[in-house]
């Protein structure tokens, strides 16, 4: 089970597609119960996926910042000891470098994700509606859905590095 959850097939295929499918299912079953059928607008979950990706990334970045603090604390302990363990210090320094690099990039990634979110929501508002209730398949549904899935994959890829 753990192997499957850690596999690329789960992280880059089943997780994003499953999130989108669950979003569609929830949208469909929570509509007015008096009379409702599955409509193409139920597939318009791209913006929700993008927002989820943005928030996931913020959570992952916070985790990384905490991990960096912990690694720095351990490094300080190792360097402050009477006999310095050189191999442990080197390993901790590598970890600190890696986490610092990730955190340096995190600001840009989150900016890109929010830029994408703003861009897609503006496009949907301007060109995504055919009528008051009906969306256009390309700009209203396909573009946000594709971008939402891509954003989720990017966040997952960043999380496992």
């Amino acid at each position: 089970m753990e192997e499957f959850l850690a596999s690329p097939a789960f992280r880059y295929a089943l997780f994003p597609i499953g999130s989108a499918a669950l979003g569609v299912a929830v949208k469909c079953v929570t509509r007015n119960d008096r009379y409702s059928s599955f409509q193409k607008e139920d597939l318009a979950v791209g913006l929700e996926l993008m927002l989820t990706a943005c928030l996931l990334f913020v959570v992952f970045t916070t985790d990384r910042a905490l991990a960096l603090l912990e690694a720095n604390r351990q490094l300080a302990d190792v360097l402050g000891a009477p006999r310095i363990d050189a191999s442990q210090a080197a390993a901790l320094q590598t970890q600190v470098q890696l986490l610092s690099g990730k955190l340096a990039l995190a600001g840009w990634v989150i900016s890109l994700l929010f830029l994408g979110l703003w861009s897609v929501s503006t496009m949907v508002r301007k060109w995504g509606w055919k009528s008051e209730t009906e969306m256009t398949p390309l700009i209203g549904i396909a573009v946000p859905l594709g971008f939402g899935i891509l954003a989720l994959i990017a966040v997952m890829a960043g999380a496992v590095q």
Partner: protein
Amino acid sequence: MIRRRISRISGLLSIIGLAVSMGMLVIILSRSLRLSELMLSIVVTSIGALAGMYSMYLVRFANRLPRLSPRIFLSYSHKDQDIARQVAEAFRTNGARVWLDQERLRPGASIGDEIEKGIADADTFVALLSGTPSPNLLLELVMARAKGITVIPVLLADAEVPVDLQGLQYVDLRKAPGRGLEELVRAAT
């Protein structure tokens, strides 16, 4: 004039923003993933976008699958709206979803379009007949026949049954409404 210009600029900016954001995310992905993982990601993203593009066909296919709750279109004259509401409640208590114009038609909505959508999505068409038939009954019947769904006439009072419904077995709510309603619910759900 200024507003239109601002709107045009924001549209242009949104396209540029999307291109930049998407391009940069793909670059980040290509740096952090192996080729096979990158290809898988591109395939999955394309599947999502294609599902959106062809959402109309997907929905049409999904709506053809057997449903957990039957959908019923209720046609009636406005004089009978209280009885129609009771009949609808009886259907709903038994798990059906009911189209009632008094709930569905909002001010300004096109009556013909809404009725067409309602019948297109229905499994059963129930026509409540009393002295005054609904003005839309004949049009609704044509749509229901074209879709090939079950049509059930229901007699509420002594009424002239339209020619299009004369060959169909009806449910009689005139003498024993309770039993008739049970029969109707069984037939439609």
